[in-house]
Every structure is written in structure tokens, then in C-alpha cells.
């Protein structure tokens, strides 16, 4: 199960390949595997691969405070009305990196916005699932750092702001659903260079996890290995190249991302 770390294709990869390689089905960590993962990490250090292989979807404005921060602007142009259905977006595959993989801060961005969110990893094909059954379609949970170049408008932001290479660190692993009894009662903490920069709670979601799955799968099937980010809390902190971002979600994991300058 363990192999020595090395470099392949210019990327660091993990010694813990069985966990970190994308699998045909998402690989959920049970308690024993989590122990071994922690051991492998401690022993081996840098660079995990993303633990999932499907499409990664984000949910916009799903935190009560994030929506409240918009205030009356939701009724003015360009929005003209508050959101009705879940507003979703996609983080493409070039954005996905694993735990401890460095992310390049582009030259044209002095700092990045740190979008800390719980990622719900789908375990079985979820199409038109009812709220009461929704969690049964979940393989587990992971930590996602939905990075953006800060931008004020939610109207039609350019892909440049959210889709740069490496802009979606995810992991370290998928923690099995059975080990996370209540995904709507988790604390999400962002630390930058070891200092707490933001703390939020998943119990502030406008659509809690099961409700969100029901509303999304009404029009869009989610497949095994897909990830649905539940949404970023208000007041997302910012960080610069040279800083180290850590997102911890109690019981799910701690995702570490060093931000680096463009290499020349």
C-alpha cells in the first residue's frame, strides 16, 4: 500500500497511492484507513492527489450570511431578484489539486480569496432524490478550498477568476459518511500561516446538505465521484503567495495549501 514518494510528470505524488489515486468509485476512508493515511502523511510529507475523479460543482450564496451580505442589492440590477433555485458552478479538472500541493498565485492577482467549504462526495447515481433519502447517495465528505481571484460581482464572472490551474485544492481524503453523523453541524476553520482567519458553521446553510442534493438532482444527475461543494461563508479571507492556507473541518480533515509565486 505504501510506496516512496517521487515525482511523476513534474508533480509530486503521494506515497499513499491507494488513497490518493482517483478510483472508479470514490474511495471512502474508514477509521483504520484514516489512521494509515495519517501515518503515511506524517511519514512521507508532500503532495496528495485529489481523492475524487468526477465533476466538482460549487454552490453560490448558500450561506445565510453570504446572501445577507448582499443586502438589498439582490433586488437591484443586475440581479433583480434574490436567488430561487440553487446557483451552481463548475470547477474544471485543471483546477483540481490535492492536499499539500502548491498553488500558483497568478501575476495579475495580488491575493486570492479562500473559499472554504465542505465537499459532499457522491457514492451512487443521484437523480431526483428526495430530501429524506438524499444522504444515502453520499459516499462521504471532504474539504475543498474553492480559490478565486477576488471579484465583486456574482452576475457573470469570467472563468479567469475561478478556473486557473490549481484553483481547487481538495482532500486530503474522502471520509466515509458513517463517520460524519451530521454534515449540517460542522465547523469550518481557515488558518493562514497558522492564524485563524475565518470560522463558520455548516448549520448556517440556506439549503442544508440533503435539501441541496434534492434540489440539484431535480434537474441534474450527480454521479459517483462527483463533488458538490455546499457553499462558502461570508467574509472569505484572502491570502498571498508565500502564505500557507489550512482549512479544517471537524471530523472531515485538514487541507493544507501553500500559495507560491509564478515560477520563471
Amino acid at each position: 500500500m505504501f510506496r516512496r514518494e517521487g515525482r511523476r510528470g513534474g508533480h509530486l505524488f503521494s506515497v499513499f497511492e491507494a488513497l490518493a489515486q482517483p478510483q472508479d468509485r470514490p474511495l471512502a476512508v474508514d477509521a483504520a484507513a484514516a489512521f494509515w493515511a495519517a501515518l503515511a502523511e506524517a511519514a512521507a510529507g508532500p503532495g496528495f492527489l485529489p481523492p475524487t475523479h468526477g465533476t466538482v460543482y460549487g454552490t453560490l450564496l448558500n450561506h445565510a450570511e453570504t446572501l445577507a451580505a448582499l443586502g438589498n442589492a439582490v433586488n437591484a440590477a443586475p440581479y433583480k431578484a434574490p436567488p430561487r433555485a440553487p446557483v451552481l458552478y463548475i470547477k474544471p479538472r485543471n483546477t483540481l489539486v490535492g492536499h499539500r500541493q502548491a498553488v500558483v498565485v497568478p501575476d495579475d492577482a495580488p491575493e486570492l480569496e479562500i473559499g472554504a467549504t465542505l465537499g459532499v462526495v457522491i457514492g451512487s447515481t443521484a437523480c431526483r432524490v428526495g430530501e429524506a433519502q438524499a444522504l444515502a447517495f453520499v459516499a462521504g465528505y471532504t474539504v475543498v478550498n474553492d480559490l478565486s481571484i477576488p471579484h465583486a460581482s456574482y452576475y457573470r464572472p469570467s472563468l479567469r477568476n475561478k478556473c486557473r490551474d490549481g484553483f481547487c485544492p481538495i482532500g486530503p481524503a474522502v471520509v466515509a459518511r458513517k463517520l460524519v453523523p451530521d454534515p449540517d453541524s460542522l465547523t469550518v476553520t481557515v488558518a493562514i500561516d497558522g492564524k485563524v482567519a475565518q470560522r463558520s458553521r455548516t448549520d448556517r446553510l440556506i439549503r442544508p446538505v440533503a435539501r441541496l442534493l434534492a434540489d440539484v438532482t431535480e434537474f441534474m444527475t450527480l454521479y459517483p465521484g462527483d463533488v458538490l461543494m455546499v457553499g462558502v461563508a461570508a467574509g472569505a479571507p484572502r491570502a498571498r503567495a508565500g502564505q500557507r492556507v489550512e482549512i479544517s473541518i471537524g471530523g472531515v480533515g485538514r487541507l493544507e495549501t501553500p500559495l507560491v509565486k509564478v515560477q520563471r
Partner: protein
Amino acid sequence: MKRARVAYAGAVHDAFAHAKGVQLVDGRVLAEDAVVWLPPFEPQTIIALGLNYGEHAKELAKELTISAKDEPLAFLKSPGAVIGHRGQTRRPSGVTYMHYECELAVVIGRTAKNIARADAMGYVAGYTVANDYAIRDYLENYYRPNLRVKNRDTCTVLGPWLVDAADVADPHQLPLRTLVNGTVTQQGNTRDLLNDIPALIEYLSGFMTLSAGDVILTGTPEGVVNVNTGDEVVTEIDGIGRLVNTIVGDEWFGRA
């Protein structure tokens, strides 16, 4: 070469165009309606362009706060929304405006990062036809166009063929059109793309690495109209393919 992926007699097959329809790699020649058509490749990142034809941009300009002078208007779709040739697309009951979009789809063949315009065409594996439906009743002004409008199950149709780039003399001189129940409702030519294929590859690869299997839906010309349950919608690009789709109602999906 025109390649397809089809299901036939208990298996999924790679297949090629044939005068009588389609030929599986194992040699069997079959009529077009004897096989189930899958998307001709497995799409990875799907990038779609809005307002990339001059006249269509004008058509929609009144409701938009951007102009074509701005950077290309690109958004993402997911592979889950994709179906193949001769498929069925669901029109939810009660909606008032669901429209097709006939688009040239450019399939990336190898890893592309920071590619200059002059080199861009070397990264194209081939082309196919896309019909990228939208249901405008669901439009909301957050992260437009929101996925509930543009990324619904069955609402992105790709095929029938992946046509090798080498077999398309000039992808910027391709007449395209849509026929609803046999009547032409939309016509255009890829020479009118506001951002042509090299411009799109240069723009996108300048901030995100493109890889083999990624696909760029280059946008649609003017002439989108509402379609209804029972309509046959044919999106067609000369030299690339004729993509047939049928609009079906909720009852087909056990929703009625």
C-alpha cells in the same frame, strides 16, 4: 475519418462512417437507426461560448449588460448533461421558452497551456456538432447562465461524428443551420465567429490548461426559437454532421 461510438447488440463499439450508415470496428455495417448513438467521445471539461456570433449578440444585446468588445463570454458545462445523436431531450411541462443552439464543437487533442494564436490549430483533434439547449424560464442573474438553464440532463447533444481536424479544410467556412420539423429556423456560417478557434484556444489556454477530450462549444448564430414536445430538431454543419434530436415531455421520464 469520421468516428462514432455506438451501442449495438449488447456492447459499446467504436465505429466509422459508411455509405450505408455506420461500420463497427469489427466490420459489421449497420443502418443509422439500427444502433444507439453515444456522444462520439467522452467529453471532459466542456467550455461553451455565449454571444460569439455578431447577429446573435445583437439579438440578445438589449437584455445584456456586456458587449462583444469584452473578453469572450465563456461558461462551463458538465459531462452529465451530454447525450448522443438521435437522443431525446426533456422539455419540462409548464416552461414557455426552450431553445436549441447549433454550434461547432472543437475537440482538444493534446495538452494546451499558454498557446499562441499561430500554434493553436495544432491542438485541435477534431470537430463535432453540438446542440446546446437552454430553458430560459429558469434564467437567474447569478453566475449566468446558471446551470439550471444550461446544464440540465439530456440538454447537451453531441455527434454524430468526431471528424478528424485534418479532414476539415477550413473550420471557419462552414455553413450551419437548424431545422425544426424540417423547416429551417436558424442559419449561419462559422466565418462569422466573433472569436475564432485560434482566438478561443489562445484565450482559454492563457489561464487554464486544456487537455485531450476537453471541448469548446463555439457559440450559436441568430435564429433561436422555442421548441415543443414532439418536435424533431436537426442541427447540421456542412462537412461535420447532421445531429438529430427529439423533444419529449415529462411523461417519458415518469414525471407527469
